[in-house]
Each structure stands twice: as C-alpha cells, then as structure tokens.
C-alpha cells in the first residue's frame, strides 16, 4: 500500500502528519467550546454542532451573497455567535443547573432538531461551496501541500486556544469562571456572580463554535447537517481530555487528529471513524477522569 522509496515514504508520512495536525486543531476549535460550557454549567450541549453549522452558513452568505471578505465575515460571525450565546443562556440554559442533567439533554437535543430543521427549511439541503480567493490556493513545500483555507483554519484554531487559555488563567474573569466550575456555592459566597459567569461561559462557548463554522466554511461543504459529523466526535474528545477540562480537550483533539490521519494512511477509512470512540472507551476503562483530568474542571 505504501509508496516505494525512502524520500517518497518521508513525504507520505509528513503529509499525513500535516493533515492530522490540521484536522486535530479543527476538532479542538469545536471541542473547546463544548468543554467550557460543560465545565461551568455541567450541561452537555447537544446543539453545539448546530451553532457550528449556523456559523458556517452565516459566513457563506456574508461572503458569497453580500460580498464581505473572509476576515470581516469571521469577525462578524464570531460576534453574532457570542451574542447568540448570551441569548441562549438567558432564554434557555439559565434556568438549568447541574442537577437538571436530564432536562438539559432533552432541551439541547430539542434545540438541535429545531435549528437543524429550521436550517433545512430556510437554506435547503443543497451543499454550498464557499468559493473565495483562498478556496483553491495551496501552500506547496516540496511534495507537501496545504490548502490556504486549512492554514487559516489552523491559525484561527491556535489563536482561539491561546486567547481562551489566557482568559482562563491570566484574567480575573477567567479565575471567576474556574471558581464557579469548581464550587458554585463557594464562588457565590466570595462575591462572584455565578449567573454572569455562566452567561459569559456560554457566550464564549457558542462564540468558539461560530468561529469554527466561519473558519471551516471554505474548507468543507456547507449544509444543514454538517454539525452532526463533528459533534459526536467532540463529545468523545472532551471525555478523553477530561470532562470540562478545556486544555485537555484541545490536546486530546490534536492527538486524535494526528492518530486518525496516520492510521487512515494504512487502514480502511471506515475504521478510522471508530478510533475516537475506541479511544474514549479505553480512557473510560483505564483512566475514567480523562487523560488530563485532575478532578478540577476548566
């Protein structure tokens, strides 16, 4: 199956590794928001993939129908997604707490169906291809190739991780968020407003999801069901990384992306799809708190 010759072999492995890093960062963009929302609110957001899809749809219409450039579209979509996160929290999630776990699942599953079918009704199921100047441009180094759109998604993913990390560990707001995640009542006793912190966590989480959608609109076909394929993998990733641990989710996502790509270079593609869930089961059996879980969330 592998090509002959040492230099060709090296190019083959390097291309698989490069693809894997990009896929991993794409997974991380989606999984970090999911992990943050779970960490602070103890809510599994089944509608997370739909916000990613809406972000991609918005980016598509902004660039193709309304003539915006790629970067302004990314900014607008992220800002809209953050606002949508605030609305989502105030309208739906604010009334839920950790003890309403079943209600939160039903609520977010229902929201997911409404958003997905609403998108089918409004935008039809026709796959849309965002064709900007960068859609068909490639960076070529020797035998290695990386589409420019993937390079941008990689950059946005790394920037989002850095910004989120700095927010969580270098700001008072981040400290408050970690405080609420660790002990909501104790945080309240020391003067932190859990409601405001939770609202911010949902806004950032949905904002990251919207950003992922905008970043990936030039990479993948945009259609109402595009969130589905990523969201279940994102669930596996946040369990592997340690539930509620944002950094753990990001690292697990990149590890999974590389693993999938390397294995996909040798085994049938259908087996690659099972890797995330096999890894999740193995982690649950051997280290139930996750690879990077320390019993402390966010």
């Amino acid at each position, binding site marked *: *199956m*592998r*090509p002959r010759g040492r230099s*060709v072999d090296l190019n*083959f492995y390097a*291309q*698989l590794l490069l*693809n*894997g890093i*990009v*896929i991993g960062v*794409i997974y991380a963009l989606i999984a970090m928001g999911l992990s943050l929302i779970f960490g602070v609110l103890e809510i599994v957001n089944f509608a997370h993939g739909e916000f990613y899809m809406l972000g991609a749809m918005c980016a598509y219409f902004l660039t193709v129908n309304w003539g915006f450039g790629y970067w302004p579209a990314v900014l607008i979509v992220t800002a809209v997604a953050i606002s949508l996160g605030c609305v989502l929290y105030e309208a739906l999630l604010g009334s839920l707490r950790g003890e309403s776990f079943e209600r939160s699942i039903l609520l977010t599953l229902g929201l997911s169906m409404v958003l997905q*079918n609403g998108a*089918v009704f409004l935008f*039809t*199921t*026709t*796959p849309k*291809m965002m*064709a900007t100047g960068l*859609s*068909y441009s*490639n960076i*070529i180094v020797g035998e290695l*190739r990386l*589409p420019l759109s*993937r390079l941008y998604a990689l950059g946005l993913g790394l920037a989002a991780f850095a910004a989120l990390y700095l927010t969580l560990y270098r700001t008072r707001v981040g400290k408050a968020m970690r405080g609420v995640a660790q002990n909501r009542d104790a945080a309240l006793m020391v003067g932190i407003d859990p409601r405001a912190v939770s609202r911010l966590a949902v806004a950032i989480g949905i904002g990251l999801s919207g950003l992922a959608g905008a970043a990936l609109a030039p990479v*993948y*076909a945009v*259609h109402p*069901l*595009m969130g*589905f*394929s*990523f969201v279940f993998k994102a669930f596996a990733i946040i369990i592997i990384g340690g539930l509620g641990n944002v950094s753990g989710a990001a690292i697990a996502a990149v590890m999974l992306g590389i693993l*999938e*790509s*390397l*294995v*996909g*270079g*040798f085994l*049938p*593609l*259908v087996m*690659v*799809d099972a890797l995330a869930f096999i890894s999740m089961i193995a982690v649950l059996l051997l280290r139930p708190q996750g690879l990077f879980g320390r019993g402390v969330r966010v």
Partner: protein
Amino acid sequence: MFNMRLTVAAAAFVALAATGIAQAQTGSIIIGASTPLTGGVAHFGQHARWGAELAVAEANAKGGALGRKIEIDFQDNRCNPAEGVKSVTQMLSEKKYAAIFDGLCSSVALAIMPLIERAGVPFIVANASATSIAERSGVGGNKWTFKVNPTDASMLDALVGWLDKEGKAANIAFLGEDTDFGRAGSSGLEAALKKRNQKLVMVDFFQKGTADFTPVLTKIKARKPALLALYAIDADFQNTIRQWHGLGGGVPLTGRVLVDQVPKEIMASGFLDGTTSVQPYDPSVDTPANKTFVEAFTKKYNVAPMLISFESYETINILIDAIRRSGNASPAAIRDALATTKYRSILGTELEFDANNLVHNNAIIFAIKGGKVVIIGMSKT
C-alpha cells in the same frame, strides 16, 4: 316496527357503502412515495420529488388517469432503510395507494422490496441503482418491483468497455460510500474489469457524512493509480473533490462522477481533465422531448433538472401510462400493465421491462476535456 327499523338501518348501510365505493372509484388515484426529504441526501430527495410532481402535474393537466386525478404523497426516509420500512409500512397499512414509488437510496429500496411483495402493491424504482434490485425482481423472485433506471453493473460495463478500447482500464483505484450504492459500484467495476482481465488496485469505503477525506486521499495519491473511481454524492462529493484538488491528486476520476456538480473553479482549472463518467442522463441531450422537460422543470423550480429529477419524471410517467392502461387502477392490474410497457423515453429510446422487470435505456459516457464536460458516447445498458 322492529322490521321497519331493520329495513331503514339496512338501507342506510347500503347507501353508505355505495357512497364509499363510488368515492373509491371516482376519488384520486394516490401514489405513495418514500424518499429522503431530510438527512445527508435530502438535496437529491428534493429533486426526486420535483421531477415526480412535475410529471403528476402534467398528467393531471391532461385529465389525469381513467378520468380521475392523480396525487402523490411523499414521506421522508432520510436514506435510512429502517425509516424507509417505517414509512412504507404505514402507507401500505392505509391501503389507499395504487403503487409505491422509489426510495432513492439502494439500501432503502432493497429493504422496501419484501414489504411491497407481501402487500401485493407495485413498487417502481427510479433512482436506486444497486444491481441486486433487478437481480431480485421479475424472474429473480419479486414480481411487484420494477426498475426504470439502469443498474450500476450495466452502466459500468459500458464505461469500462470504452476505457478498455482507449487502453485506460488498468490501474484503477476505488473510493465509495459505504452503502449499497457504493458497494454496487465497487462490485460492478470489479465484474466489468474482470471480463477484460483487469482488477481494481485499491478499494476503500467511507461513512456517509464524512467531512475530511485527506487521510484516504493522501493514501490514494501515494499509490499512484491511473484513475480514481469515485462513488460519492451530495456533500460527500463536494468535500472529496475539493480535498482531492487541495492535495493535488493529479489523477483523473472515473465511475459515476457527478460531472455537473464539480465546482466551476476546479473544472475550469483543467485539474480533472481526462476524467470519464457514466450516467443515465444529462440535461444537454439533444432531443425535443428532453428540451421540453428541461424548460418546464427550470420554469417551475428555478433550477435545471439533474439526473435524479429526470429519473423520477420519467418513472412517474411510465407508472401513469401503466395506470391508464390498467383499466381499474387496482395494484394487480397496474403490475400487469407495467409488465407490458412500451414507452418512448424523452431520450428518444423505446423502453420496455425485461424478465427481471428492468428497463434498458441508454447510458451516457462523459469526459472532461479542456476544463469542459463533453458527451463522448451513448451505450445501451
């Protein structure tokens, strides 16, 4: 007194029954349809619905069938066999449908076939292409299933015959969706190549809805095949084509490539030059009936028809023709009428069902040359 009451009740019952019978004979003839209206191939389901509804509207404008209006009820199957079985079971239990139309996905059509056989209702397949549907129909066992579109095996045999003549049938890799459609493509190609002492050098399948194909495409590129046979539709097709371009695949495609859906930037770049494809239809086929169909479809839905819309349009027309000839629109009479079909396709050929209840229309072989799609031949399937 008692006798009088009994007489009145009996008269009322007879009157009600007579009204019911009269309604059954004068009400609409209803066709049941199960197709993906949501899910990964809902875009194709939408075109299947449009094509079928256009045929029904045209028939009703000409007086319907047997003096009655024709209606078609669509239910969603999400391209999922379980959903297909559920929707058709429900339709069959209502006992008001003269025939069942399609399923669109091969896996769904295959799951529906035993149900309609037990219920004794004709099932007419427009889009599902798996060869096994025809193999199990007519003399193959299921007398109630009729398939209008060509099988994968027959189309691929036509394509591979052409490739072989051009000396291009060697070193072909295969990538297809892990469904009956993709599996039929793989086995159809294997069979057609085997007849010419060739075989597929690599076979891989993917789950429908996969977004990232870079691992498998990198593997295929490194294997350096002469052609890549691609069996993907809808968003999967768009993602594969874009990622193949991004990786600089450098290998033309073949198989059932949806040449009309290749992004125009990729097409114009010449990246896919040398690609060959076989399909049962293309809107550019130059016959008066096809031109009329394309015009009517585009006017009604603001988009040009595609393969799926054509197949549904033609299949419903064949079904309506059989209903008109059946005399009473009963399922058994429609089945017998379908078996004796002689119908002129809008592509210009005369269609009839063979012993496997399969129609043999022409397949069109396409090539991409200089960044443009050209028809290079038509071949009987």
